[in-house]
């Protein structure tokens, strides 16, 4: 446990070094936010029908999405994949701590540090200039914060799964490339999930990916009652536990058939 916390702490410190990158990233994300806001504005003025979300809610949803973008963007952990490729993964396996939890700590750090560095300034800018609404109520804000905590844990679990898929080099390469694009769409960041067709809503609600963006954002906007919110949070944590168990099993399987290359 303490080893994992130390890893978490160290990685967050390393990642907080990249401040210029964060500033450039914020500017880029705000630019793309503008493009998306203008696109949705055009869609809303083109259609007189009533939609599950108002135009103002969608704008807030978009800016929250840009602010917390890094929680839904997945790549593989470059250092771990390099270890797997070069064979130095062996050293990791010899450490006197569970390699699974060490790697999970790395993934959590990789989500917290850059997301916090980019999210806080963007939310402030959003409130001040960009038309981001304030949370619907104090309860909404509280639920939003709870859901974000789960979102970080969930995002880290998903990213660890993508990295672990590399233990099966060939099929893993396909999964770790295509998977993130699919998760991106299903998290609600491309199109807010309530705007998807009615008949696929049950599928979206059952999948874990709405826990990344859609659940926290709808809680923020007050689009869920607190009973719905509690259920959504329970589901979010259920998925976190489930995915972590899957990850442990995949790692155990991977280690059993691991052939270390190099000498």
């Amino acid at each position: 446990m303490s080893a994992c916390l130390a890893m978490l702490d160290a990685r967050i410190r390393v990642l907080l070094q990249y401040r210029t990158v964060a500033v450039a990233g914020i500017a880029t994300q705000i630019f793309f936010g503008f493009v998306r806001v203008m696109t949705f504005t055009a869609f809303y003025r083109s259609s007189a029908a009533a939609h599950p979300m108002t135009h103002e809610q969608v704008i807030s949803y978009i800016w929250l999405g840009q602010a917390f973008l890094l929680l839904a963007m997945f790549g593989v952990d470059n250092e771990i994949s390099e270890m797997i490729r070069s064979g130095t993964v062996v050293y990791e396996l010899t450490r006197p701590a569970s390699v699974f939890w060490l790697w999970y700590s790395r993934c959590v750090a990789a989500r917290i540090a850059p997301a916090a560095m980019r999210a806080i300034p963007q939310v402030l800018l959003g409130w001040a200039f960009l038309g981001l609404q304030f949370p619907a109520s104090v309860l909404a804000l509280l639920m939003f914060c709870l859901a974000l905590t789960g979102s970080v844990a969930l995002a880290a679990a998903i990213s660890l799964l993508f990295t672990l898929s590399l233990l099966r080099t060939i099929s893993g390469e396909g999964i770790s490339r295509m998977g993130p694009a699919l998760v991106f769409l299903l998290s609600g960041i491309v199109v807010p999930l309530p705007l998807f067709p009615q008949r696929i809503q049950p599928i979206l609600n059952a999948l874990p990916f709405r826990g990344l963006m859609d659940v926290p954002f709808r809680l923020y906007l007050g689009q869920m009652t607190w009973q719905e919110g509690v259920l959504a949070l329970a589901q979010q944590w259920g998925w976190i536990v489930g995915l972590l168990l899957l990850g442990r099993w995949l790692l155990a399987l991977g280690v059993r058939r691991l052939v270390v290359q190099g000498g």
Partner: protein
Amino acid sequence: METLSLYLCYLGISVRSQMQYRVSFVIRTLAHFVICGIEFLGLAVLFQRFGQIDGWSLAEVGLFYGMISMAFAIAEAVARGFDIMGRLIRSGDFDRLLLRPRGTAFQVLAQELQLLRVGRFAQALLVLLWSVQALGLAWTSSRIALLLLAIVGGACLFSGLFVLQGTLCFWTIESLEIVNCATYGGVGAGQFPLTIYRPWFRHIFTFLIPVATINYFPAHAILGRVDSLGSTLLVQWLSPFAGFVFLMASLRVWRIGVRRYTSTGN
């Protein structure tokens, strides 16, 4: 002529090195195809919900999407060599290019041909073919000619942007994420008719980074729609040449960058 054969020789080396990992190459190309398809799925969901955008249907927007994505795929395949300029400069390897009896832009360009971009190209082509089919447009020779002109012009425009991105490294040493606003931003913005955006934004992508000239204007001629901005047919036919001009201008800027290059190596 000799330059061309040298270029082909460079490309042959790049292709052969990519083919060393054949299965990996196939998987990555397929993945690229699927990723772009998922992106289009998002667009389809929006049209399912809203029906149209400022009077444009999904099929019409599909033409805009297909044209700009094909152009971008070509540029990514051919000119992504400029992407690694930061690395070339940091390691001091750029010095080696200066010693060889060929232009630096040529050598950076020739060092890589990213074959996996076939994935995006194929996906964009499918969308374009579907769009033409759905709109019932006939494949007349003038339509095909303008389409090719616009795509090649677009490939030049995006290549020019990659050259500028590489040139920037002479000053910044690092590649900057913010440049993505021009490249990916241009592709993203050009997927829709630019009139849906606010005027200031439209002006940036018409005059500064002339995405409109290889997409918005020619697409009107291809669709046979009257431009609400009032461009004439002549403008719509001539505008793709702005892409070539942009590339030429970018190469000029490149030369300025090379002149102020100071080596970081030892």
